[in-house]
């Protein structure tokens, strides 16, 4: 049997939940374990309720688990709020004075930290204690602390090492009911969240210019990029608003740089006009829309999948675009690379649909993150033209893709406009020019469609298929596993490549099952609507969640059972 432990670190915003969580995760990664951790926090900076819920296992895990084995309560109210989630043998680490309750392990965190050298080390004490309970060898944590603090001045390293040991020792004799073997295997993969994966994917996609306006849960992508900007040929600029952000990247791309922005729903609204500009001028851009619940400001720090139909149909009139939705950080990394490639190859906008769960959760990547050896560019210059002075930016071709030159890069003049235009790029109101350009842009659809990866199926031969997209991938898959174990013939279908919609492939997959259900974090089953629009197949039901929190596999199991009973 797999060992599967969920640790919840809960406290107020500003208490350093993240620090404890980071240390724990790193230790588990180094020990060759798998993990998945979600971050739950409010739209405030101090106080309130936050938690980091880390699921650790010796088997791959890609979804959170609602039953908590170990609750690290950084204050009393967090214990009060969450102790009901503890499993029957679960324990809560808590800094209390009096007699601990049956499921509490009292630990004087602040006192131990002070002993180690400063209150600031409290989080290290907590991490040490956590690992002590879990039976982890302290050496791994020591190694991580050494890596992290060895170049810090003064006694920072010593203080932290001592804090870790004090926490560790304080609980080491308490027998915790679940324990890993801590076999010290090598790491199973990169420890990474969706935001970082997208940022790194952008670098691997050779993104050169990024512009953004801060907005949860999309800011993380840019913070990661900024932290890498000194080492790589990329410039990140905070814009005055989202309108500027998207137009800055359109300008950058027009000048020759691969460029991206990242935002969330409300910001995406403001970008829709710029999206259309990129489309009609056939300027490649990549937009990350990290979804959160709306409408409007909605729940700024929570998760949702409510923007699918919006991003597919956003901006006036019609034009080809890519919409890709990663389900894990590893997928996010690869999809971001593909988004840059496809966007430039077809000279169309590409939208990456992420969400708060993906962006803010950490995972062990299921495959190695590999930097492409080289980046294929799709740009021409005078040397590849017979007569540069006759260059026409929007020359009609069979594929719909015209050779793309850059401005001020030779004799060829680049002329582009957001108005409808002639092949040479000048504005035209002539009906035949209009038809030519619409047809030229639409001519890209078939080849674009051929680039779409088929949905990933797991037990696709089952009677029942659960169909989803985005970050609920792990939960859906696991729910299908659970259901199969209970004797229900259930498989999972995960779509990443949503537009152009791979209708034929999807139809083939879905026609084989008896019934299919969509699983989505919205209230109208948008993927279900899209499948019906594109294939004519109607889902037999929808398992929907729209409270802003990620799916637990068990919720999907319950949701399906309601249909089956």
């Amino acid at each position, binding site marked *: 049997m797999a060992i599967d432990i969920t640790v919840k670190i809960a406290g107020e915003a500003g208490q350093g939940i993240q620090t404890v969580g980071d240390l724990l995760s790193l230790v588990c990664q180094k020990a060759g374990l798998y993990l998945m951790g979600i971050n739950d926090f409010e739209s405030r900076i101090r106080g309130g309720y936050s938690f980091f819920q880390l699921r650790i296992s010796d088997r791959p895990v890609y979804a959170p688990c609602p039953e908590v084995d170990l609750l690290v309560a950084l204050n009393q109210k967090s214990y009060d709020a969450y102790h009901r989630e503890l499993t029957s043998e679960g324990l809560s680490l808590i800094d209390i004075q009096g007699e601990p309750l049956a499921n509490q392990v009292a630990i004087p965190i602040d006192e131990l930290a002070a002993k180690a050298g400063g209150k600031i080390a409290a989080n290290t004490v907590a991490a040490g204690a956590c690992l002590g309970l879990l039976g982890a060898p302290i050496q791994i944590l020591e190694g991580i602390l050494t890596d992290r603090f060895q170049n810090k001045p003064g006694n920072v390293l010593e203080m932290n090492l001592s804090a870790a040991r004090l926490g560790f020792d304080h609980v080491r004799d308490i027998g915790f009911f679940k324990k890993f073997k801590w076999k010290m295997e090598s790491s199973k993969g990169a420890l990474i969240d969706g935001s970082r994966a997208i940022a790194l994917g952008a670098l691997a996609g050779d993104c050169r210019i990024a512009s953004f306006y801060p907005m949860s849960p999309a800011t993380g992508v840019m913070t990661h990029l900024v932290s890498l900007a000194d080492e790589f040929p990329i410039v990140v600029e905070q814009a005055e608003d989202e309108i500027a952000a998207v137009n800055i990247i359109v*300008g950058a791309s027009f000048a020759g*740089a691969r460029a991206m922005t990242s935002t969330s729903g409300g910001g995406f609204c403001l970008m829709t006009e710029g999206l259309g500009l990129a489309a009609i*001028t056939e300027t490649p851009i990549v937009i990350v829309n990290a979804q959160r619940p709306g409408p409007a400001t909605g729940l700024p720090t929570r998760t949702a999948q409510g923007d699918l139909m919006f991003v597919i149909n956003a901006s006036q009139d019609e034009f080809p675009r890519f919409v890709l939705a990663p389900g894990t950080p590893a997928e996010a990394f690869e999809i971001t690379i593909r988004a840059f490639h496809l966007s430039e190859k077809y000279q169309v906008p590409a939208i990456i649909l992420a969400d708060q769960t993906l962006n803010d959760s950490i995972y062990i990547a299921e495959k190695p993150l590999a930097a492409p050896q080289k980046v294929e560019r799709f740009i021409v210059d005078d040397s590849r033209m017979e007569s540069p002075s006759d260059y026409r930016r929007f020359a009609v071709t069979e594929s719909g893709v015209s050779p793309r030159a850059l*401005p001020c890069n030779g004799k060829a003049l680049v002329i582009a406009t957001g108005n409808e235009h002639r092949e040479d790029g000048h504005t035209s109101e002539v009906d035949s020019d209009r038809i030519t350009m619409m047809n030229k842009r639409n001519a890209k659809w078939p080849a674009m469609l051929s680039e779409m990866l088929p949905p990933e199926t797991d037990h696709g031969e089952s009677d029942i298929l659960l169909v989803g997209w985005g970050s609920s991938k792990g939960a859906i898959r696991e729910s299908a596993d659970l259901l199969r174990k209970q004797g229900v013939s259930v498989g999972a279908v995960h779509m990443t490549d949503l537009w152009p919609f791979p209708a034929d492939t999807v139809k083939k997959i879905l026609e084989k099952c008896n019934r299919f259900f969509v699983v989505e974090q919205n209230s109208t089953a948008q993927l279900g609507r899209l499948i019906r629009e594109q294939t004519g197949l109607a889902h037999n039901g929808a398992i929907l969640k729209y409270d802003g929190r990620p799916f637990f596999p068990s919720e999907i199991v319950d949701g399906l059972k309601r249909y089956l009973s």
Partner: protein
Amino acid sequence: MVTIQDFDCSYENNWCPGCGNFGILSSMKEAFAALDLPPEKLLLISGIGQAAKTPHFLKCNLFHTLHGRALAIATGAKMANHELTIVVNSGDGDCYGEGGNHFMNAIRRNVNLTLLVHNNKVYGLTKGQASPTSDIGMVTKTQPHGVIAESFNPLAIALSLGAGFVARGFSGGGEQLTRLIQAGMKHQGFSLIDIAQPCVSFNKVNTHSWYKKRVYDLQQENHRTDDFQKALELSFLWGDRIPTGILYQKKTPSFTERLGIEKDGPIIRRKYDPLKLQKVLSAL
């Protein structure tokens, strides 16, 4: 030697006969020729409006974009390739109305480009509604009782935001306008030239002759362009006498200088390095 004729282009100009835009177009060509900048070394970026059509009417690289967004787009282009010589053609509605926020922020960033605002104090292309610079009282179809909002003062705003080159031109200014454009383009940083431009179709107040009576050239009155307070004062002068010329000039590092990206050549020319990236990836 680049000549004015080098910018001739066969694309049909569709401005109204007598429009002030023609004067601006001429001065642009003259300035480019005087600066020895051939069409292929020039990138003209514009928003949407009559003014924003300008780039089509001469030979150059051009990006005619969205209403109000030219400066954001130009900012991005400059980031990607700081060697681009960018001139932005915008209208008063385009730049100070829809594009108001980008106007302020292009100045704050000090993006190294030259902004020509064809300020006809009206929305020309959409048939004559008031613009942010319309004077109070101006009657239009959508403001039948006259404009009631205070007129937008681009020069004062630019100065307040720290702009390093602030000028007013006049579409009927001929050689003076040509000189201003040249000076703006030579300035390393953001340069604003707000150009008083009659619209013969929709602005019956601020006509060519109205301006002719009022404009005077600061440079002919020995105005010191390094006097900020004086410039600010002059920026509020609008009435019987309207100052034209460079109100203020000061060199501060431009956006791409401040970003520190000018050292190693344009961003678009740098090399992709898989090894370096793989190191980061493998360390996760």
